[in-house]
């Protein structure tokens, strides 16, 4: 059976989960690349060069975006859970997304 439940808070939840999951999958890769520094620095350099390509840049932007989304989504959640004000939740959700955009946008502009 189909379930209809699309509304802002639910989307915020999905976004938080997807970003968390993506980060969790990406992180081991990130760690692996960094640990190359010790043993094979030239491969790290090669990787960093590879990372200069536009497509990869875009992917990085996505990653930072996800991180930002996840962080501000998480802060939003903890604010909702622990701080006494709770009414303007949707605004919070939208706000978190906005901040995430600004941060990752800055990153993007800097990088390109």
């Amino acid at each position, binding site marked *: 059976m189909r379930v209809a439940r699309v509304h802002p808070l639910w989307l915020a939840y999905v976004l938080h*989960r997807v970003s*968390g*999951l993506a*980060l*969790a999958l990406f*992180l*081991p890769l*990130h*760690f*692996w690349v*960094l*640990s*190359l*520094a*010790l*043993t094979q*620095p*030239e491969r*790290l*350099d090669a990787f*960093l060069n590879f*990372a*200069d390509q536009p497509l990869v840049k875009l992917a990085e932007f996505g990653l*930072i975006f996800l*991180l*930002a989304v996840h*962080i501000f989504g*998480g*802060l939003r959640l*903890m604010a909702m859970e622990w701080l006494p004000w709770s009414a303007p939740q949707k605004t919070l959700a939208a706000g978190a997304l906005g901040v995430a955009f600004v*941060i990752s946008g*800055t*990153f993007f502009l*800097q*990088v390109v």
Partner: protein
Amino acid sequence: MLDLRLYMLQRITALIMAPLTLGHIAVIIYAVQGGLSAAEILGRTQGSVFWFLFYGSFVLAVAVHAAIGLRVILHEWTGMTGTRLAALTWGVGLGLFVMGSKAVIAVTWPVGLP
């Protein structure tokens, strides 16, 4: 699946990571100006107790945080429970911790490039 203890652990690690991650992003934004190179990165971090603690605590926190997070997702999406779920939680946590530690050591241990 998530009792008060796990919940607090996840929230506390999140709170620890929030400034660390934002700081990390800030550093990257600053660093990428002018292009990255391994030497540049390592030159800044290797041998620095500050960066060791900075990234070390991140690794510790993220291992706990992501393990709990994945545990919840696994349970809700696959119905996994009991020892298998516990084993996977620990596996993810330890795996991340080991890999992360290697990375932190690589980046901050004061050995210099061989």
